[in-house]
């Protein structure tokens, strides 16, 4: 049972059993390995140099060398923006932040030690489903059963590149960005360019079983080997027969599975059964199992979760990347909720972003009743801002199953009925990505996930902002005013953090930057500071 438990934790955790193959059963499988989160502090520089030069303009330490025309334009813009800024800051205490800043870190799938990842590229009824596999146990113990809507032939199954799934994850992960306040005594516009954009790049398995398969009502529809996997496509007449067949053929089935096989059989779903072909695996020389990719045509747009919960003790994380030519995808039979985003949090979170994201996700999960799907990212695949990773190349998208990539872009850019679509500063493509994060348990997710694609092309990202205060010496009215505003701002950030993560506010406050108390200003100083006429 250890292997089964281990498989459930580390194998594909949706709609399947990841159960041991008893011939190679080992009582002590590899223990759970918690993968620490790596902070990508170096990526900010790499980013600003390689993909998104405009980001650099937000920071004094990054300088570009523009042309004279650009300088003139910049001056004009600066003048205009200063005017706007002065007028607006006179009335508005809270600042609105544009979608820019330095990308510093991301919260990707490595954060969760029980995460499964699935990429679904779908247009019409045509679907390419890729299941990535973070199975950590013995390769020979690995086996999965996934209900699939149709009988798959060998040509419909492929092995995908692990790097593509990792790239999808990195591209869509919630991200941490940081800003640096300028010296308040030298006012300058907060930003002077549009948000940056990255350019669109451009066996032997069933032999002895065959005899009694018919008696058990099990039909081996297809049997083939793809890459390192031996694959069977089974159809069954009744769950008892299927269970017996699987047991006879060396698959260990958890208790309670039989009742769950029945609904799938009755819905005329087929069973995709895969195990590792050790010869092929050794020949190929891979370290880990590669993702399995399947292409099929079916009106069903769903992921069977129930089988994966047969004997799961804890909540399991599932990351679904849905690629569509239309727009955002959502869950049709559960609520889809956006993760909290675009909040300013204290700067110390930079060194503990993984803890922050995990706590924040858990808090939101509890708050929403533990029965919702979280939207972590929804974006046109042609761009990102800020980028936590480069957009996927056409080749990678094709590998992720985007079969319509070479078709001309039609629907997505079609305007509203009367008015044209709102002009977007971003390049667009015919691929829209939705990243859904579902943490599911048996009691809160009784039904399998059903998805639907929508025409919603509103972009969304999980994005958390660190705003570094200017803590240098200031000797002007604006500077004094700025200094006085800091404690309140820091406390606001602390409260936000406490609310999002449920962390102890007192402990958060201890970690805030220390600011020297400033004498209260006279009312005229306040007015001059707001008008920006002094200093």
């Amino acid at each position, binding site marked *: 049972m250890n292997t089964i438990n281990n498989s459930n934790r580390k194998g594909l955790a949706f709609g399947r059993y990841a159960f041991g193959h008893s011939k190679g059963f080992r009582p002590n499988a590899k223990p759970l390995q918690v993968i620490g989160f790596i902070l990508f502090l170096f990526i900010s520089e790499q980013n600003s140099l390689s993909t998104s030069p405009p980001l650099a303009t937000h920071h004094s330490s990054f300088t570009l060398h523009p042309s004279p025309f650009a300088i003139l334009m910049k001056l004009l813009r600066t003048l205009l923006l200063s005017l706007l800024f002065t007028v607006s800051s006179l009335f508005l205490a809270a600042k609105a932040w544009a979608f820019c800043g330095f990308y510093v870190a991301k919260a990707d799938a490595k954060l969760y030690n029980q995460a499964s990842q699935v990429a679904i590229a779908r247009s019409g009824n045509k679907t390419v489903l890729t299941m990535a596999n973070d199975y950590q146990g013995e390769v020979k113990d690995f086996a999965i059963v996934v209900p699939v809507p149709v009988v798959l032939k060998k040509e419909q199954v492929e092995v995908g590149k692990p790097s593509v799934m990792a790239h999808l994850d990195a591209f869509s992960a919630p991200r941490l960005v940081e800003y640096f306040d300028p010296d308040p005594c030298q006012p300058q516009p907060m930003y002077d360019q549009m948000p940056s954009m990255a350019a669109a790049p451009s066996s032997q398995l069933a032999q002895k079983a065959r005899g009694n398969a018919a008696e058990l009502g099990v039909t081996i529809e297809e049997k083939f080997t793809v890459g390192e996997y031996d694959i069977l496509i089974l159809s069954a007449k009744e769950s008892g027969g299927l269970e017996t067949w699987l047991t006879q053929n060396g698959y260990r089935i958890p208790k309670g599975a039989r009742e769950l096989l029945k609904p799938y059989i*009755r819905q005329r779903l087929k069973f995709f059964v895969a195990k590792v072909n050790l010869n092929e695996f050794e020949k190929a020389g891979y370290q880990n199992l590669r993702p399995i990719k399947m292409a099929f045509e079916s009106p069903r747009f769903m992921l069977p979760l129930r089988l994966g919960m047969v004997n799961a003790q804890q909540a399991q994380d599932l990351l679904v990347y849905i690629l569509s030519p239309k727009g955002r995808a959502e869950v049709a039979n559960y609520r889809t909720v956006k993760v909290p985003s675009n909040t300013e949090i204290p700067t110390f979170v930079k060194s503990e972003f993984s803890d922050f994201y995990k706590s924040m996700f858990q808090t939101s999960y509890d708050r929403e009743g533990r029965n919702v799907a979280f939207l972590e990212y929804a974006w046109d695949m042609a761009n990102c801002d800020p980028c936590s990773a480069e957009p996927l190349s056409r080749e990678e998208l094709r590998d992720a199953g985007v079969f319509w990539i070479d078709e001309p872009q039609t629907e997505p850019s079609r305007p*509203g*009925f*009367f*008015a044209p679509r709102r002009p977007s500063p971003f390049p667009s493509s015919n691929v829209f990505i939705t990243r859904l994060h579902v943490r599911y348990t048996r009691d809160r997710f009784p039904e399998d996930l059903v998805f*639907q694609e929508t025409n919603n092309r509103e972009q969304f990202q999980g994005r958390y902002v660190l705003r570094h205060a200017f803590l240098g010496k200031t000797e002007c009215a604006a500077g004094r005013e700025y200094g006085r505003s800091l404690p309140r701002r820091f406390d606001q950030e602390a409260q936000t953090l406490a609310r999002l993560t449920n962390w102890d506010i007192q402990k958060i406050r201890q970690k805030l930057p220390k600011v020297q108390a400033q004498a209260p200003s006279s009312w005229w100083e306040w007015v001059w500071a707001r008008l920006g006429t002094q200093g």
Partner: protein
Amino acid sequence: MQIAQPSMFRDARLYQILFLSSFLLLGTGTRDWTLHPEIVATAIATCCITQWIWSVRSTPLTPITSPLLHPSLPSALITALGLSMLLRTEHISTMMLAAAIAISSKFLLKVNGKHLFNPTNLGIVAAVVLTHDAWISPGQWGESSWYALLFLGTGGVVVQRVGRWDTTGTFLGSYALLELGRNLWLGWTWDVLLHRLTSGSLLVFSLFMITDPRTIPNARVARLVWAGAIALLAFILRNVYFIPTAVFWSLFALAPLSAVLDLIWASPRFTWQVESLENADNSDAEEPKAPNNAEPEKKSYFLAPTP
């Protein structure tokens, strides 16, 4: 503005407006909807203006009737609130189109003085079919027993006032029976059935949309047949064709059946006026008195509430 308050609150439409606007606020406040205020405002403005134009065209106002407070405006408001709650779009123009089609259909697509389609339903379907930026979010309410109770309670008040509880009952009952049969046959656990039936969107549909008295058949038998047919089609669309928004398509497809059923089972037609003698089978519905003595003589242009 000398409207007699008690009679105002005897109009079921006002309850409907009250409940729908609270749901809208509740949904936006607690359910993380991507609702843009300008789109809600567009829906309300377009519905009211379209309604006003058509009403004034079809029924010249007497000098005493205030043109701003046209008696059919509450119906337009109900349509607008329904559209805001159920139809999602990023564009004002799409909502304008949906609202204009919804209201105009009440004047243009009529059989025997009754609407051929449920206005809100038609507006939603038109926007989804004709434009490329509208969609419906069936999962937006989630499945919570607390919401289910709220919807049943408030919907019950409206349905009871309109006196068309049989439609809601038949629809929900037959849909639940079909789902129960499916659940038993497949061998799913009971929580799967409960999850499917407590869907907020399903309840809002069955309590606030399908009950529109101006689109449902007049005779009770016809109403039972009609509601049962909608439930059956919705069930098939959802479980055989895997369309998550099945109920809306089912109502759209079967709404015109109402006219046929009226021919088969002739029965008095519903209007909102208690004075109307033809409202014989609707003793439960308490209709509003006219605001003052200037009661318009003709009542049939009063428009039905739509969710």
